[in-house]
């Protein structure tokens, strides 16, 4: 992957209002949800400032952030399908890109967005942890902060799948719809049909295992354990899925007329 591929992508994205609007919604919603989270009342108890205490804050921040991966996915679907709509993908192949260049260029955007959003999540975590908690134990501040790294892999995974849907379907509306239906409806239905020890390896389940619901252990004492990978065990399958989605994107382009 060469820096010049990313530079060309930035020339397309930086002046693109749609991209900024989606990122602004992502940033604002995440901030807002974290801001009001302390008011959430469970069993008549309001979490209050204790919600923001390190180190328990990190899994909470990344769990909340994981809900907004869909926005990042939509942004990537748009970035990919635009190339078909404007027929610029075709022109770029004519002008000198290989099909692998096209996929790598989009993948470089996925990486950049992943790192930018993970950084934002990290900064938000520090901000809320330092300003809102009643006491700030500096010694524990970075304990469990690796949750942000798991979140990074998760965001890249979601966006890689979105990229694949973009290359597969080519039309933005349909591709977004298919991406949402797969992520939120189709795979959950499949999970329901299959035993846990198989469905825990499905892509959406693997990706969501990277940011488990905080306090899940307590929850499961009541409802019974559901089998899922720990973030650490989900890491390798997640990386393999990311590789698979990128390869399939290339495979689609390779054998299709543009």
């Amino acid at each position: 992957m060469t820096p010049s591929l990313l530079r060309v992508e930035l020339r397309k994205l930086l002046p693109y209002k749609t991209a900024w609007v989606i990122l602004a919604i992502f940033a604002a919603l995440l901030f807002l949800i974290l801001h009001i989270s302390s008011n959430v009342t469970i069993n008549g108890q309001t979490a209050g400032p204790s919600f923001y205490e390190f180190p328990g804050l990190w899994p909470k921040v990344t769990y909340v952030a994981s809900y907004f991966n869909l926005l990042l996915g939509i942004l990537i679907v748009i970035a990919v399908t635009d190339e078909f709509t404007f027929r610029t993908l075709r022109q770029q192949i004519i002008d000198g890109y290989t099909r692998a260049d096209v996929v790598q260029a989009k993948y470089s955007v996925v990486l950049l967005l992943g790192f930018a959003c993970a950084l934002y999540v990290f900064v938000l975590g520090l901000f809320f942890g330092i300003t809102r908690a009643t006491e700030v134990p500096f010694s524990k501040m970075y304990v469990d902060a690796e949750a942000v790294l798991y979140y990074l892999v998760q965001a890249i995974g979601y966006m890689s799948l979105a990229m694949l849907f973009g290359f597969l379907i080519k039309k933005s509306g349909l591709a977004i719809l298919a991406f949402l239906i797969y992520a939120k409806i189709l795979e959950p239905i499949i999970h329901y049909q299959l035993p846990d020890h198989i469905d825990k390896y499905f892509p959406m389940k693997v990706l969501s295992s990277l940011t488990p619901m905080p306090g899940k252990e307590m929850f499961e004492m009541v409802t019974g354990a559901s089998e899922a990978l720990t973030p650490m065990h989900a890491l390798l399958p997640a990386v393999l899925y990311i590789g698979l989605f990128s390869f399939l994107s290339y495979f689609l382009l390779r054998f299709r007329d543009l």
Partner: protein
Amino acid sequence: MANVLDIQGLSKRYKSVQALDQLSISVPEGSIYGLLGPNGSGKTTTLGIVLDVINPTAGTFQWFGQPLSKETKRRIGALLETPNFYPYLTGLQNLKIVADIKRVDHSQVQTVLETVGLANRQHNDFKGYSLGMKQRLAIGAALLGNPEVLVLDEPTNGLDPEGIAEVRELILNVAKQGKTILLASHLLDEVEKVCTHMAVLRAGHLKAEGPVGTIMSAHDLVIINGGAPLEKLEEIARSLPIVTDAKIIHHQVQLILQTGVDSAEVNKAFFAQGIALSQLTVRKKTLESQFMEIIKADKKI
């Protein structure tokens, strides 16, 4: 002279449609090569294949005697069907992207914008451009990197007469710099005015290929009159081996000669029969009638 592009036995099948059938053509260096044919005859499919965006079903092609690669792509500037740009970016921003992809220095962008007359509109969004401006921007993009070959697909499509004249002048100017131009068009007039070589396609088949002059003169009409009654002239003409067809039209006899036969031969042959023709004119057929003939001939089969 070497060939810039060689195509051998290129075929493309879309499910039930044979878009291109065993096409073999060669584009000589320095020529303005016209790919002529009605809509759906396989022109864009041919260009799409040699430009790497359509996978052929069979056949091969070489640019500059080599298979297509990043290096050969940099020697080619091409516009296929429509101008393809980001509508929300300005003309300048769009050309900078093309320059980056072609690894061309940005200083060339201004030069090209001036060549195609868009320097004063470079800061406007592409979506606000008129069709003619969009087309000129696409030609400008194709010119970036000073390529040896320009591939233009219907470059005057949808333009007004002024725009058409501008684009043609641009093409001729570029050709004067010694560049080879491969031009697809369904406009006979365009090919006749601009091209040095041509290939005629119909329904994916090659119908004729060669220098424009040769194709045109291959079936020139010779009109004769005088020296004997028309019926007599017709009868003699039909008996001559150099004449493929003769008929009486408008009180004249119209002859079609065999390929490569000079009209002076006709005069000699009649003189040998003791007839001095009072009129012998060669009428160059327009490309239009030529074209219709090629296509009709095919329909009969």
